[in-house]
């Protein structure tokens, strides 16, 4: 009962965070519009990938151009949600450690991990990707004549949430390197380009790369599994892994988090 109350409390606080960030972004409307514009720029390469796929009528291990569009759309949608809720917090973590800003967060009467990893929400970066992703998904879904039954859609959404949890765990675990390397600026470029691995379905990659991307650094789980599910290409091993991987990633992240916070020296504050 108390756990349920705690959950309710944190959901309420998260709602306040969202409201606070929306109010702040409406205060600086020009910044908001500019944020939307910059994300539109990031959509162009995705459109170019789609152009290549359709103009060449690319078929990869049973995937037609329409199926590939579903993968690109899902990846774009998840990118939007990820940038709004996770990435905007991820980029701040090294700053908290470097400038000693963590001091002010430690003294707050709520979970430090919650405060550090979920404090900010930036909808400006989400809007173009979410709209673009949804359009791609709807087009692909219609052209592939996929089922619109409750189980198909619910399973697809659940696996997207599953992917987001994995994204949270992996990205935040990487961000904790900031506790060891004070200037982790170059790491950000590497993470962004690593994320782009999901631009194309994992079917195009080699056997070993696929195994690494699913079981070791589970980047392919994020946007490939929801598509495999709706396309009836989800193997039993992948279905089982979809249940295990978020728990496993969160567990590793939590362990890493505890170790990292102990290293915090409050420098520069």
């Amino acid at each position: 009962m108390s756990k349920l109350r705690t959950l309710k409390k944190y959901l309420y606080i998260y709602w306040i965070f969202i409201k606070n960030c929306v109010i702040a972004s409406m205060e600086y409307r020009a910044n908001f519009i500019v944020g939307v514009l910059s994300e539109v720029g990031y959509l162009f390469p995705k459109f170019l990938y789609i152009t290549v796929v359709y103009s060449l009528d690319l078929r990869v291990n049973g995937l037609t151009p329409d199926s590939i569009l579903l993968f690109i759309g899902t990846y774009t949608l998840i990118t939007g949600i990820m940038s709004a809720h996770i990435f905007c917090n991820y980029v701040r973590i090294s700053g908290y450690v470097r400038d000693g800003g963590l001091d002010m967060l430690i003294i707050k009467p709520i979970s430090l991990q919650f405060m550090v990893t979920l404090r900010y929400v930036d909808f400006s970066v989400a809007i173009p990707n979410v709209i673009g992703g949804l359009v791609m998904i709807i087009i692909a879904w219609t052209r592939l004549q996929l089922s619109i039954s409750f189980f198909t859609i619910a399973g697809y959404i659940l696996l997207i949430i599953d992917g987001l949890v994995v994204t949270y765990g992996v990205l935040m675990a990487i961000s904790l390197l900031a506790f060891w390397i004070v200037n982790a600026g170059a790491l950000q470029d590497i993470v962004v380009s690593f994320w782009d691995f999901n631009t194309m379905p994992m079917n195009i990659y080699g056997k070993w790369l696929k195994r690494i991307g699913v079981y070791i650094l589970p980047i392919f789980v994020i946007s490939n599994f929801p598509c495999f599910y709706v396309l009836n290409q989800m193997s039993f091993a992948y279905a089982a892994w979809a249940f295990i991987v978020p728990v496993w990633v969160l567990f590793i992240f939590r362990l890493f988090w505890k170790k990292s916070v102990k290293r915090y020296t409050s420098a520069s504050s």
Partner: protein
Amino acid sequence: MIKLKLLRKYLKVIELGFENVIEYRVNFILSLFSLIFPLTIQYYLWTCVFEYSASETVYGYTYSQMITYVILAGLVSRMVATGFEWEVSGDVKNGGLDKFIIKPVGYYQYRICSFLGGKIAQMIMLSIVTAVFLVLISSFLGMQIIFSRVLLFLLAVSLGTMVNYGIVFCLSTTSFWFNEVWGIFIAVGLSVNLLSGGLFPLEVFGETLTNIFRFLPFQYTISFPINIINGIVPMEDIWSGLIIQSIWIVVLISISNILWKIGTKKYIAIGG
């Protein structure tokens, strides 16, 4: 004597730009690691395309020409990349131009010299990486690398860098008219990269658009230099391409100079 003094002053700025990149070399080298992932995606994508294609060529490129193109596209994008636009917009927004009023250097000349200094250092590091890639490509894909084309490639990349400098400086002047320009820089920067052939060969856009692109400067920054090395541009067309690059440099630098002069009239030194 005065000219010599002037030259020495700007040579010092070039030296400072060079030292700045060398000082942060680890950061630059680390950022090169981020190239590995997009290059891997491109390699697998095009390998897949050629595996399933009935034709020997796709968009007019053979497999080895395409792999050479997409790998070099990532590297050449870095070679011609700028970055000074953020400093220019910061100087305009926060009044940083003020200090140049009392300094014996012109802002425009300072920027171009500082850019050149930084570029020389980056070019040295990137040329080593490119040479390694070319050796790998020629040994694994059997792609014949002709030495004279490599030299012309280096010349075309250097000119392409200056073409890009002109494009980006024109873009930077938007800082005089808009307060928040970072979104414009990102969106336009990404679009320019795509139109320059920084992701895929320009033939992907179709014949009509490719013909239109001939009249724009963008392809002379990335696409043209790479197509020299992979043999897509015939030897007899290379020199005319280099001349067009030089013309674009003059045109773009003149336009950016004019825009800069118009912009500075609007400058009100807020925050300086």
